[in-house]
């Protein structure tokens, strides 16, 4: 049974790891918003709220870690595809290295 402390810690961690999840998924393929939410759920078992994801995407775009492109669809409702930039890739590599370092240390 999880106590309150653990639950808080877990939610903080999830929040902190979200940029890593987003960059990791976009490193595999470009995605539109809804797809990204589904992929994060499938890979990391985390259900990100739209109200959390979209502001994060805006911040990552502002920091130039992501790029975007509107792609027309047969439905007439285009999709906004997000892709990782070169800056994003190098940041992702550092984030992964750091996460791995922590894991190695705690497994000591």
């Amino acid at each position: 049974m999880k106590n309150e402390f653990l639950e808080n810690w877990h939610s903080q961690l999830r929040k902190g790891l979200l940029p890593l999840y987003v960059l990791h998924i976009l490193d595999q393929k470009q995605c539109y918003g809804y797809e990204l939410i589904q992929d994060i759920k499938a890979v990391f078992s985390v259900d990100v709220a739209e109200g959390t994801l979209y502001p994060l995407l805006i911040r990552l775009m502002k920091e130039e870690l992501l790029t975007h492109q509107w792609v027309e669809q047969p439905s007439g409702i285009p999709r906004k595809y997000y892709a990782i930039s070169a800056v994003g890739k190098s940041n992702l590599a550092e984030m992964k290295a750091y996460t791995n370092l922590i894991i190695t240390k705690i497994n000591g």
Partner: protein
Amino acid sequence: MKSITLENKSAQRIYNDYIHRCKKAVKILPQNDQQDCLLEINSHIFEYLSAEKGDDQTEALLNVLARLGPPEEMLKELVATKKVEQAKRTFNPVHLLEAIFLNLSNGFIYIILFFLFVIEISLPVLIVLELIYPERIGFFTNKHGGFYLGYGPEESGSREWLGNAVIPFMLVMIAVIYAFMILLLRITKTTKKILQ
């Protein structure tokens, strides 16, 4: 923007109302930012409804709208950020004022900017007053060592320093304060970048 057509009439009304609220929430932004934002919300609703086809359409629509949240709340951060970008880009005082108001709760710097804006709009008023009461407007010092800029009293021992240069001085002040405000906005962004 192409609207989504829904089979259920009530669902269509809920959708239309939601999009209408989104449009209102982003109205203050430049046209292309408005368009981009509305297209993305519309696309998200469409993709969600296409993926959750099995469910009742109204139910699915209500679910996705609940996930998105009320437009006014969901778009608050975006609108404030985009407005600052516009103010920095255009040098337009109206956008600057809107950016300051939208961000008043986002840090002390915006309160400083607000006061600078008040000073900024009072300077043209002084220029008009200078045309009406040339002797009473200027930079004054009195015999006690005090000094101030603005509308001066008819006090013995006070001296006005600017003379005919009052209007050019005010114009320069307006430009300097404005440039300083834009600079503050730009610095705010950079410091945030470093902290993140």
